[in-house]
């Protein structure tokens, strides 16, 4: 086994691309995943805020493991991400490459490693912990489910858990959250639904996200350029079904986006409310509107994508939902 710390070029090394394609190429929505994978890679390469240090491990000229140390100046001084983590199911291979990663990180003054994160939490991150083997939905991170077990063998300090769930019956939940929606209208909040997003609206959304998520695990501030690269109006239009904006006195104070998985299935993505408005039931009101529209448009299933297990959503009913995947991100003290 040979472990190489290599100098990254503009595109991922061919062996890594092959490995990723071998692993997930036949999965549904792979193209979507792969384009995100490349975007994340480019984000790390052309970025003055990031030092990107990839490691590869070869056996008989085959890539058997890959991992990268990603040092983003916007994280705390002693923290870094690790990502672009792909490997075969072999503990000793992981141990060896992990050792190299750790040594390099220590040399750079890093004592906390967070991951797997491909670049930032705005990109793909987490690995799969449990799955019912249902198909991947669009924008879902793909990973082998043994990564979780392998990484826990490296003795993480802590784990952040996420899950994705689906719901096929909307009536019950809508009945419960209906009151919140009615209340909302009477106290001066408004919901606007958009198909197209203007540049100004996009910047406002960026600002709200920054305020709402800055205390989230692994959060890094994006520059305007980075944000627009990720979420340009054009890109949003292709992926997004609708964007719901929540207003109070002409000010956007929250938003939620949905995307279409297929004719039957709608994906509910990030739901975001400014901290000072949290706990008033506004999230539930937004959710009501989304479920209502989904019903009208003939969707049979809603997917709640990539939700943090201990998030601030406390009052959204969980009955009738089916958790079909759990994910984890780790923190290692080295």
């Amino acid at each position: 086994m040979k472990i190489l710390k290599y100098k990254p070029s503009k595109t991922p090394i061919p062996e890594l691309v092959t490995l990723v394609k071998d692993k997930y190429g036949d999965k549904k929505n792979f193209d979507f995943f792969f384009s995100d994978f490349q975007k994340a890679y480019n984000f790390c390469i052309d970025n003055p805020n990031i030092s990107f240090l990839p490691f590869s491990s070869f056996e008989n000229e085959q890539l058997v493991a890959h991992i990268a140390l990603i040092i983003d100046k916007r994280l705390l001084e002693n923290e870094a991400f690790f990502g672009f983590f792909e490997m075969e199911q072999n503990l000793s291979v992981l141990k060896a490459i992990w050792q190299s990663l750790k040594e390099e990180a220590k040399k750079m003054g890093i004592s906390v490693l967070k991951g797997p994160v491909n670049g930032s939490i705005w990109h793909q991150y987490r690995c799969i912990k449990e799955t019912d083997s249902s198909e991947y939905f669009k924008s879902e991170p793909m990973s082998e489910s043994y990564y979780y077990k392998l990484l826990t063998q490296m003795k993480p300090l802590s784990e952040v858990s996420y899950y994705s769930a689906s719901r096929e019956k909307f009536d019950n939940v809508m009945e419960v959250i209906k009151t919140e929606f009615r209340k909302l209208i009477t106290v001066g909040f408004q919901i606007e639904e958009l198909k197209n997003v203007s540049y100004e609206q996009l910047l406002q959304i960026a600002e709200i996200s920054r305020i709402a998520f800055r205390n989230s695990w692994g959060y890094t501030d994006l520059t305007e350029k980075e944000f627009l690269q990720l979420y340009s109006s054009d890109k949003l239009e292709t992926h997004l079904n609708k964007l719901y904006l929540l207003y109070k006195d002409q000010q956007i104070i929250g938003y939620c986006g949905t995307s279409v998985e297929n004719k039957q299935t709608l994906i509910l993505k990030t739901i975001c409310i400014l901290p000072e408005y949290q706990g008033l039931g506004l999230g539930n009101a937004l959710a009501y509107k989304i479920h209502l529209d989904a019903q009208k448009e003939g969707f049979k299933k809603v997917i709640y994508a990539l939700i943090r297990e201990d998030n601030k959503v406390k009052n959204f009913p969980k009955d009738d939902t089916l958790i079909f995947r759990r994910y984890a991100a780790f923190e290692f003290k080295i």
Partner: protein
Amino acid sequence: MRNLGKANSLSKLGKAGFLVPRFFVCNSSCPEKKILSKIEAELSSVKFFAVRSSAANEDSKLKSYAGHFYSGIGVTNEAVFTEVKKVHESFGQIAGKVIIQDFIPSESAGVMFTEVEDNNIVINSTIGLCQPVVSGLACDEYICNKNGDILSKTISKKKEIRLFINNKIIKQISDVESLTEKQIKQLIQLGKRIQNFFGSKQDVEWCFLNNKLYVLQSRPITRDFTIFKDRVYFDSANIAESYSGIVLPLTQSFARVVYAQVYRDLLRMSGVFVKKLDHHPEIFENLLGFFYGRMYYNMNNWYLMAAFIPGYKRNKENFELMITSNIKQNITTSIKPSLIFSFIYPLIVIVKAGIYGFTSKYFKNTVTKELRKLQDQNFDQLQYLDCIDLFEVINMKLLRQWYIAVENDFFVMTYLGILKKLINEQLLQKVIKFPSKSTEQVTELSLLSKKMYEVKNLWNAIEANDVKRFNNELPHHRELERLLNKYLHSFGGRFANELKLESVGVDEDTTKLFSVLKAYRNYKLKLNVLSEEIKLPFFKKIIVQIILSKFKKHASLREEFRLLRSNTFCMARRLFRRMGVILTENGVIENADDIFYLQMEELLDQTALKNKQCFSSSKNLAKIIQQRKKDYNSYKSITPPSHFATTNNLPPSVKQDIKFEGNIIHASPASPGIIKGRVRVFKEFSMPEKIDFDILVTSHTDPGWTSLIALSKGLIIEHGGVLSHASIVARELNIPAVIGARDAMVVLKNQQMVEIDGSTGTIRII
């Protein structure tokens, strides 16, 4: 004139454009007049000079006389000639010249090694002039890589600095960091340029004045040295179980002596020649290290100890397993067992293993007999010198026997090591239950509590914490008195922090006993589930069962020996307390408890009683105590790391705030089972009035925690391993437990709901 040595390189550097203070060179025999006229010609505006040596080959690639010759700094015009003569005298037989140079009254200065080991740059610096650094006084040290990253930095808090103020060099003490990051970067740049220029690694003397960086000297590094060679590793590992938190000097010095003796005896009894052991007393004397009042293992010395006997790797692994070390390093040593010893050592081990049944019985009998004698001794009658004599008895008859207990530990570790190889962790957790006397202790306590509850007067006294009433009432109930004495005899030495001499035990403070009795009023012992059936292939199963039974035998022996150790320490504590009383009665110290701030050597000094009149602070015990109390008080607010590496015995840097994110903590499995409930964080042992928690969270436990552990439904322990006391008791009492949960005490808050899984080692915050 051809310049020699230093002058040669200085003039080369000057010509290459480096900023070098102006200078000229003269013969050491040059007359004063000529020197003065040269100054007039070449350094006319200069008021103060540096006068240095430049001997032939002084600083060549092959030789360096760094620091051998005299230098004068801040020298006035009038004094230059005298200084030149001094430099000349310091040459002796060696040919040399003298440099007369513009003196830079620098703001900061130091020495830089442009390349050391793995492309690192080492900078030693101080405030003011360079002189203290060159003479090896305390200074700041930076280790950087060539990209300019600082890999490590050590700022000396007591720098003796030299400043040039009002035309005079004055001394001061400073704790200010000497360099800014910008200056470090400048220095690294300079280092790289100079090394490129000369084509070899350089030792550069430099200084900063008015944002200018001057090169004062540059010479080749003549001797390769390694910067990380002398790193010493310290690990609190399982010593923090027995001696958790701050440990006072008496306990520290007592433990140091005991460890030194026991492990030296262990090697001696394993066949290592005394002569060989006597060559390395420092290894045994420094098996422990002390920082901020906390105890650590000095891992380097443990590793060196492992090198005395054949099978270094296995011995080292056994040590690591035994003390559950976080550190696993390799060190180089010249210690090796002789060929003959390597040959006969296996025979020694076989014989020892063969007769261990007898040895351990002998040990148990001797120790129990001696303990009985001591327990019956009236300590209050002892005079100071009697105490010193009695300590010698305790030492010879009890402590010096303890290597036998350590031998047993080795059997435990060896069998555990084999078991770990044969079966997986989860099965291991299920099958390694063995009696540790905790069930016995808990049952006795519970019985005692119930019986006392039945006697109204007695229980009222307990409820009211009224010791006097309790003591008056107890003799009326013979059977109860007998039960209590029986309990105290077996478990009197068993209380939290029982190995710390400064702890107060249940035998000394009856109210402690009361709170335990109250807590056990409604205790119900959980029924012990029998060990699980092992499902393995036939032959493997037989082997596992044999090893398992050996392991269990030795492991439960280990627990018995630990109880004996606690009872022995109890006797030492009683003796030291008596000495404290005598010293107080004689006015040497203020309070009897102050003796715990003394070192054992200070206490066992026959002249200790006479120290009242002694005004020299090194012998005045009261003064020593006063200072140490101050120091130890300041340690309370410090949370030092559990393990670290250091050089020159420097204390480790203190832990930063812990930022925790996530909802699952990964620790190690200790006792299987899943339990959900509210946590309570115990910074130290205390028996709560009400058991309002399910899961106990703490950093370490010792056998004294048994009574509290038994009342918990789950355990989360920050440090330790499978053989830590908490794990053993938890398995025996069927309480789910996880161990090695780093920072759990900070992350978890009282009354927080968590779920622990003792077979995977995870803690889920709900």
